[in-house]
């Protein structure tokens, strides 16, 4: 698409949307958002970029090929689920560790496998949709 306005706006929009997608991912546990939604927004941001600057440019901006991102996400999600298994719980049981306290109320923050799993979801959705979209676009 050869539109100067769109191309110029896209650069700004993409960065904003991508950061927004991360924001949605991280806040998902308590407020609307999460890995699925975050991944979709992230995918949209890169699709906008590829519409503005072409799929080759967008692939370069992504650095890693989207298929790899999707597979990586699947692997991260699996590992997050397997972690419970190694800790002696049934597979995919969320594991929580409190930093600076011993419960949700007292802890400063928590480290948990649930968020790791959601990051995996995010990457799968992002990578899956982008690999499709780029393949479509490059289909000339």
């Amino acid at each position: 698409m050869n539109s100067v306005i769109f191309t110029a706006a896209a650069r700004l929009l993409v960065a904003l949307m991508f950061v927004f997608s991360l924001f949605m991912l991280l806040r998902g546990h308590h407020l609307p958002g999460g890995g699925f939604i975050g991944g979709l927004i992230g995918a949209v941001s890169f699709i906008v970029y590829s519409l503005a600057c072409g799929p080759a440019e967008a692939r370069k901006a992504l650095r890693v090929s989207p298929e790899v991102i999707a597979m990586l996400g699947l692997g991260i999600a699996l590992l997050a689920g397997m972690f419970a298994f190694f800790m002696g719980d049934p597979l995919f049981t969320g594991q929580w560790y409190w930093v600076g306290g011993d419960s949700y109320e007292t802890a400063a923050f928590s480290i948990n496998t649930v968020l790791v799993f959601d990051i995996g979801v995010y990457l799968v959705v992002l990578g899956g949709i982008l690999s499709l979209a780029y393949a479509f676009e490059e289909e000339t």
Partner: protein
Amino acid sequence: MADNSDPNAPWKTLSGLGTSGLTALLFLYFLQFLAPVAAGEPVRFVWDWIPSLDVSLSFYIDGLSLMFALLITGIGAMVMLYAAKYLAGHHHYDRFALYLFSFMLSMLGLVLADNLIALFVFWELTTFTSYLLIGFLHLDPKSRRNALQALLLTATGGLAMLAGFILIGITQGTFELSELNAAGSLADQPFYLLILILVLAGAFTKSAQVPFHFWLPNAMAAPTPVSAYLHSATMVKAGVYLLARMHPSLSGSDVWVWTLSIFGAVTAVFASFMALRQTDLKQTLAYTTLMALGTLTMFLAGSTGYAITAAMTFLLVHSLYKAGLFLMIGVVDHGTGTRDANVLGGLKASMPITAAAAAAAGLAMAGIPPFLGFIAKEVAYAGALEMHLWLFVVPMSLIAFALMFAVAGIVAYKPFYGPQGQLPREPHEGPWPMLLGPVVLGVLGLLFGLLPGISAYYLIEPAVAAVMGEPDTGGRVKLWAGFNLPLLLSLITFGLGFLLYQRHLALRERLAQIEARAADLDAGWDRLLDHFVTYTKAQTRLIQTGVLRQYMFATFAVFAATVLVTLIARDVGGIALQFAGLSFMEWGVALLIVAGTVLVVLTSSRIVGLVALGVVGIGVALIFIMFSAPDVAITQLLVELLVVVLLAMAFLKMPNLDPSGSQSHSFPNAVLAVTVGVLTTIVVLLVVDQPFDRRLTDFFEAASWTEAFGRNIVNVILVDFRTLDTFGEIAVVAVAALGAFALLKGFARARDTKGGEK
């Protein structure tokens, strides 16, 4: 040879020697069980595997499984050592070592497994690993074809066997062989006949009983060490092992006696004639293996002490001499460049050690005293005389053993002491790793015969006890049992065998003539496969037309039909439509959705249709928002957006729709679309009509904060309560994306190559 060019050659040799050493260690490990098992104390190991399905990894070491385990590991170690020399320098030798070792482990699992399902898994593992081994020389199409034949035939039998096992598990309530066998015969249970047929289908295909025999000689396409291993103590004996293992549960009926006697005897006699007919010594041995399998099956038909002792003794002696002879043929082939019975002769001077080993194995095979083979034959005749069908079994055994005597002469005597022929190569003795196996096995055959008490106490009697379900104290394994009928039959065997050996050339010609006229099952197999391929192609053309529209039509038609049938069958009654109380907003959204739908149907532009579909989707998202489900609404909106973008990219490259109404298929499509729409509406209304069950909602509302520390219930369900489901979904997303990606890229590449040709 290739040793110099391959920098990994030392590692490859090491991989072979390492596996051989490991197998030898396993052999030593199993030796320690000899004393307790002989004293009547079987050992059992159990690990839970799938407790919910009553499947466990349980292993049971009794006389039968221990004898097999020792044969598998002992012969295995020697064969692996032999292969390290035989295939030295082969560029895929490491692969071969892996296959052979995996096969050994699968086989070991098979004979030790106490759980029927575990046994089945190991059974099929031997099928797959033997497929790799038989097809090892994969550049040869014949080798591939024969490997596939063995795979298809034995795997089909294995599946039938699985069905039989499951029937046993359902009717008897246990998959553990030790429990089943302790409970006694199933002969008066319901489904006994069906179970028997299914299990026998597995055993007979694996052990190559006529008419499933043809895969075994074809499997000789494999390198010699494979044949030596698969066709002496392992692969083909698996069927016999199963028959022996399940003897206490499955025998005890006339069907068992008749089926095994007839199949076994026919296989034994047919195979021994075929063995005489062959000129390739490896093929000859293949058919004698078939003979041995038939004989074993025949004796397992019986339940008397002598019959079972005969089966176990013959099993032991056959494993020893057959492995030795196969390895010997490999050494001869290696040393002279040929395996042709007509050419080989006079090798005793150039290959003295091989000749001695061959003589030991050959004498055991012919059943000459004081080799164990003699005892096996004596016991076999005694067993045959005790069987119900002795009138049939005794003459059949006599013919088979006499022919075996003649074949032993052809294989083990003639190449070394017969007249010298034109050899392709100056004969030379084999290297020691290749001689070790034949020599050790030959010596064992002699030692076991000279010390019948020891071999009986440690090996044969415990195995017999395992098969019979009770200790056998008959003291039947003796070198000298006195002047009796079996001895007389033995003498007749020797006389008849000697005559047959004298006249074997003429007989071979006669057999070749008969064979030329007989039906060829092997060619029949190829025809069967051809017909099957034709059939599957026709079926694929019928069902998978490749036209997306037809797939969609079929899918929705099936959906409509099943829903319609359910609705009519359940007689759901009337539905009350209530429009009162709908707000202005709700009416508006509904109108938006309907307008979008109408536009989709009427437009002739793909882009307009797409946008109209987007309107429908956004209408649905609005409804989600009105009922305060922000997560679902956001997802819906984003997905709608993406669908529009992706489809727009695709549509840019597609032609415009035909003007509506001109297509011949639009009428049935319209009918189907309206039907599906109406049915879906009815189903939704019916669902909404049901009182809402709040149990799940209440649970998630209560637990999402206290148990999963999250306030967004939708997200907590996705990533905590139902993580496995989510994982399944993202796996589908990833695989679907990869699949579509491959499809698109594949199309692009196919078109590029086409464009290049123009």
